């Protein structure tokens, strides 16, 4: 926790010594964080930033793992359904295609973006940002991509999709013989890696490293 600044000279302090909560605009003196600590806003309780170990290397490992899981998660069958001798398979991609073919192009595009397009774009942005920090190239593009990543964040909905799979399984279980496929395991792994990545890749340290304020903020 840090103290709100009450002195009248606060606006004269150099900006580097100050921090403001971006959810309630409270201005404070910047606390020094040790590894593993986080700073919370004393007024609204928002987590302003955290300081973690080895951010770049750990995040890079997770991004690569997520990208490797991406193709099997989206194109291997999530479930198979058997009805009176006929069988059919479902993948994330086939759901999009089926919606598109039944004339629901708008909804198909939304499902595609939320379950496949945006999660992939997010991972690619993160990969480019991390490589740009690690190899010290194209930091301006890195800044732009990291901004794009923050705008996309809310729109990737893998966890909601997984809940959708569970609901569909329950709905279908009565009607026909159903078995889950390898795609589901890959999808769950992709989701878990992505959640871990959001925790590890502390934005404050990434911004500092990207902008060159502190080259080793992400170490």
């Amino acid at each position, binding site marked *: 926790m840090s103290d709100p600044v009450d002195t009248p000279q606060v606006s004269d302090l150099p900006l580097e010594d100050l921090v403001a909560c971006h959810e309630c605009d409270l201005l404070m003196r910047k606390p020094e964080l040790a590894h593993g600590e986080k700073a919370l806003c004393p007024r609204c309780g928002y987590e302003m930033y955290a300081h973690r170990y080895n951010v770049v290397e750990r995040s890079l490992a997770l991004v690569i793992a997520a990208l490797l899981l991406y193709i099997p998660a989206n194109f291997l069958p999530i479930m198979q359904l058997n009805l009176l001798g006929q069988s059919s398979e*479902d*993948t994330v991609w086939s759901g999009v295609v089926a919606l598109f073919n039944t004339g629901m192009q708008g909804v198909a595009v939304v499902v595609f973006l939320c379950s496949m397009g945006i999660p992939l774009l997010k991972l690619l942005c993160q990969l480019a940002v991390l490589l740009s920090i690690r190899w010290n190239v194209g930091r301006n593009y890195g800044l732009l991509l990291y*901004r794009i990543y923050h705008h996309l964040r809310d729109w990737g909905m893998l966890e909601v999709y997984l809940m*959708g799979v569970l609901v569909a399984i329950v709905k279908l279980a009565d009607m026909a013989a159903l078995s889950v496929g390898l795609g589901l395991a890959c999808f769950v792994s992709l989701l878990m890696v992505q959640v871990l990545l959001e925790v590890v890749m502390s934005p404050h340290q990434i911004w500092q490293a990207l902008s060159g304020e502190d080259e080793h903020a992400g170490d």
Partner: protein
Amino acid sequence: MRAIDAGILICTECHELNRQDPDTDEQTCTRCGALVHARRPNSLMRTWALLITAAILYIPANLLPIMTVNSLGQGAPSTIMAGVIELVQHGMFPIAAVVFIASILVPTFKLVGIALLLFSVQRHQPLSARQRIIMYRFIEFIGRWSMLDIFVIAILVAVVNFGRLASIEANLGAVAFASVVILTMLAAVTFDPRLIWDNTESDDDHD
């Protein structure tokens, strides 16, 4: 003290502090280059516009069928509520509760909640800032979960595909419902939470 009172602007994208430049209307962040504003411009008006559009679409989203189950030549269109009732009739209460919360309670709560937030900020109602911020965070966190029914439809349409024996198709209600979810998510993004703390008594504690 608020950053705005000290003439300091926070970048909404990278959270860098910038000293306000009085000579320009379009100041950009010194670190990431995004436009910085003390408060998001026209935040309340834009949020109202998105919210009202969502409220209008909320009606067809709930009244029109979201999907039709075709079985042996007979089609049975079903609305969101009918889907929940069907799950209850089959005795699947936990899943019925999840669908009911995600598809009916959450969108309704979001429409009412964002309207309350806007109203309370505009009228400087003595509704406590802490209540408002809890509501805002809840709305922001929960919004995405309403997409659940849309994903369920996508999966069902793909997997129940046995020609005349059994098939499922999506209907117009799904379009309206997806629009409601997207519009309310956009409304939550457009709303500037810093407005919650302006003009509140709790400011006095820190001034």
